[in-house]
């Protein structure tokens, strides 16, 4: 159990750092979406299924969609 949780936390950290250093903003948004998904799984492991549901549906689905719509209207690559 503790091994699974630590692996997930490490994966989450890697995804968060990837979201910071990507120059392609769509890739960065997908990495941020992965942070949200892993956070949802961690909330479920911490026995908070209500929060996990909110995190998965809002953080992973809606926020990603809104960011991608915003990027489509502006520039895709960071200078």
């Amino acid at each position, binding site marked *: 159990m503790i091994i699974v949780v630590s692996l997930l936390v490490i994966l989450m950290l890697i995804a968060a750092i990837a979201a910071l250093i990507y120059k392609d903003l769509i890739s960065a948004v997908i990495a941020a979406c992965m942070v949200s998904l892993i956070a949802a799984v961690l909330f479920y492991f911490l026995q908070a299924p*209500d929060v*996990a*549901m*909110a995190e998965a*549906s*809002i953080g992973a689905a*809606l926020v990603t*969609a*809104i960011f991608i*719509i915003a990027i489509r209207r502006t520039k895709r690559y960071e200078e």
Partner: protein
Amino acid sequence: MRRVISVILLIIICWGIILALHKIPFGIPKTKVGEYYLNRGRQETGSANIVTSVVLNYRGFDTLGEVTVLFIAAIGLGAVLATLNKKGKRKIEPSSLILNTGCRFLFPLILLFGAYIFIHGHLTPGGGFQGGAIIASAYVLIYLGCRGRRISEIGSKTTESLGGLVFIVLGLVGLAVGGHYFLSNFLPKGQLNTLFSAGIIPIIYIAIGFKVGSELAGVIDNLMEKS
């Protein structure tokens, strides 16, 4: 040079936070209020899901504030996007038959799932906010998969306003009939663990589900079509 300074600053800040937090035990309650909710919540509110009983009964007024924050955010987005001058009609390419049919097949199933989550908010994990977000994600699917279909603006605004109105009117009726505070649970509690139980909690969660779903779908509509 600036990078070195910022890294040193970051290390100092991390050290301070660790020093402040490492003595606090993890997972051990520090106040008595959680214990009270766990022991008495089920009898006092009739809701099998204790999180729901806290969100809508003990802390119902805070939930009204949350709903208001979401409402103001949606209004602000609409106001900002309304000032942009739209540059002509974009040509919408129709999506392929398989994508179109798949989206139209999945759409009612996702709607049903979202409705299940907010109707059973007092029995199983989930509730109005989660169910509303799932319903809004069904609308994202429609906007991406079946280009050209839109929700009616008047319909979504009306649903949103009715949801908020039901919440506030139930709270005021509770103030007048039930007890001495806003949102008191004046309807019969019913039997624990059945669909018709917990008094006003399921009604308010259904209202919040409709409100959040139509609000977020309106945000998606604003972003996709008006910007």
